[in-house]
């Protein structure tokens, strides 16, 4: 049994079968990549895991519990954090505040009326936030208004916000899209380090094959809403069906 078990999940948007009978098993403490052409249904699949969408059919089990019917904040509290394809951060808040909010969410749960205490007295959380920012090379930006940062920085911030929650499962939707090469390599290094140091399972959607082959332990290829193959990176590289359906078109290796 994997930590994440997706069984026969289907999702239809009007006349479009975005997902059809997706089966996916992600083993604990591995990195599982999901690749596939644009519109294959990759983001839709993630949406079904985090409570943004409810699949029409099938089941999604995380850590032995069903996630279906739970709201996004409950699913996050179960231990799933997600980085979005278009960065979702608190744009009106400073970088540091963006880091504090997930820490409060982890410590205090999904709601607590702590209206009199001061944020500035939470020394322990502040230290942890600073350490995480240091790790993603953003400590110098701690006071910055986060909406005014570059797209790459927003992605890094969002990733840091997810990592600081120490999730059991981290979902990444194209985490390096829009990043400069150097930042992409930094992100790869960071994720490798996180994988080694922590008990964390990662599911990553990525178009950049360099990122995929650097990180993934297993790869699922999704095309038109159904998994084409699932295998190790070595086998995927040589797989004729994959070359034809995916790698052949967007040669990025």
């Amino acid at each position: 049994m994997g930590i994440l078990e997706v069984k026969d999940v289907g999702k239809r948007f009007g006349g479009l079968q975005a997902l059809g009978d997706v089966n996916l098993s992600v083993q604990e403490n591995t990195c599982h990549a999901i690749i596939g052409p644009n519109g294959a249904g990759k983001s839709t699949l993630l949406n079904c895991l985090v409570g943004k969408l409810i699949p029409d059919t099938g089941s999604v089990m995380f850590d032995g519990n069903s996630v279906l019917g739970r709201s996004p904040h409950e699913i996050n509290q179960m231990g799933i954090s997600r980085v979005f394809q278009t960065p979702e951060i608190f744009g009106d808040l400073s970088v540091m505040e963006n880091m504090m909010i997930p820490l409060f969410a982890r410590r205090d749960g999904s709601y607590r009326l702590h209206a009199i205490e001061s944020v500035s007295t939470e020394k322990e959380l502040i230290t942890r936030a600073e350490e995480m920012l240091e790790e993603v090379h953003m400590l110098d930006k701690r006071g910055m208004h986060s909406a005014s940062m570059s797209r790459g920085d927003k992605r890094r911030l969002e990733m840091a916000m997810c990592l600081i929650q120490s999730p059991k499962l981290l979902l990444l939707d194209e985490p390096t899209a829009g990043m400069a090469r150097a930042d992409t390599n930094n992100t790869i290094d960071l994720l490798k380090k996180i994988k080694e140091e922590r008990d964390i399972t990662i599911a990553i959607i990525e178009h950049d094959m360099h990122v995929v082959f650097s990180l993934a332990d297993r790869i699922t290829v999704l095309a038109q809403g159904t998994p084409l193959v699932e295998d190790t990176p070595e086998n995927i590289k040589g797989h004729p069906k994959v070359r034809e359906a995916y790698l052949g078109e967007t040669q990025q290796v």
Partner: protein
Amino acid sequence: MLGLGKKDTSLLLVVVALTMLAPFILNPFPSDSAMAQFNAGYPDLMQRFVIFGIFAIGFNILFGLTGYLSFGHAAFLGVGSYSAVWMFKLLSMNILPAIILSVIIAGLFSLIIGWVSLRRTGIYFSILTLAFAQMSFALAYSVLTPLTNGETGLQVNLDDPRVLGVSATADGSIPVTNLFGLEMRAAYDMAVGPWTFTFSAGYYVCALVMIAAFYLSIRIFRSPFGMMLRAIKSNQTRMNYTGLNPKPYTLAAFVISGMYAGLAGGLMASMDPLAGAERMQWTASGEVVLMTILGGVGTLIGPVLGAGLIKYFENIFSKINDTVLHSWFAFLPDGIEDFFVSIIHPFVGKGWHLTLGLMFMLVVTFLPGGLVEGGQRIAKAFRKKEDDKPKSPSTEPAE
């Protein structure tokens, strides 16, 4: 100090100084001079300044932090006033139990209205709050006459029970509101040369309550809860996927701001023990929106400034009539005098709304951050003369 940072402490001290010295600050003109009518240092108006300040401070906790624009907050103010007057009728003329009940009842009332209205966001939320407030107004005006005394308004009478007080004083009049014996209408006039300064017990009670309310709002702004509220305004999607449930946070903000409104309503009735349905009307709800925007949405001091400015206009500009205008321009030849008077006429007296409207348009267009932004720009312009120091990173919103 008091668990506040340096900047917040100084801001609080400024507010304390301004409110405590208000009888002087608001009466800059000698009482026999032509400018005396611009003096605002009389108890009735000063009380209104701070009471509406409280109302706006509370409103800003909801609107300024979460971005949820309520068009129905006057309902909570009205409920607060009715509750207080009932306390005066049934219990005693002591304002403390009256105000406590006002806050509690307004809190319960806002819990119900907030719970329903917060099922929607944006314009639908605003419309729901407006609908609830208008329903409350209609109920108070007619249906609930036994509770509210309908269009006459609720008043204290000679035959009220007042179980802990007296129904009537020894000389047969209605007792006055007091705080453990200190009468709210008690006032002391201090004459200094041509100036007269009035110190009213009622004003100082209201001012102390406003300082406490302001202090509490600073604490809320700087708390994790306040940060969550700003996070809700910024990105609810991220909030949800960070494991936080925005609903109870917004509801708590709604109830807290409703309790502030109830406090304001209770104080209002404590200064003058009557309550009428018009206090709940939608224009009253709109007014607090204007105050907050004019002063600076989401800033600490802005709502207080906005409340002061609007109440000043309402009470001072509205009193400038043609006779006053003629006396100002009396030095001009008759024809020109009439000309000036007729140009200014629409903007003063009954036309004060026009001036306020124009000012509101100017502020929203050129100073979206309200008066506070105006102040910050002026301060910046002055600071530019010193050398350009790098801005220190801050994790706090502007004061």
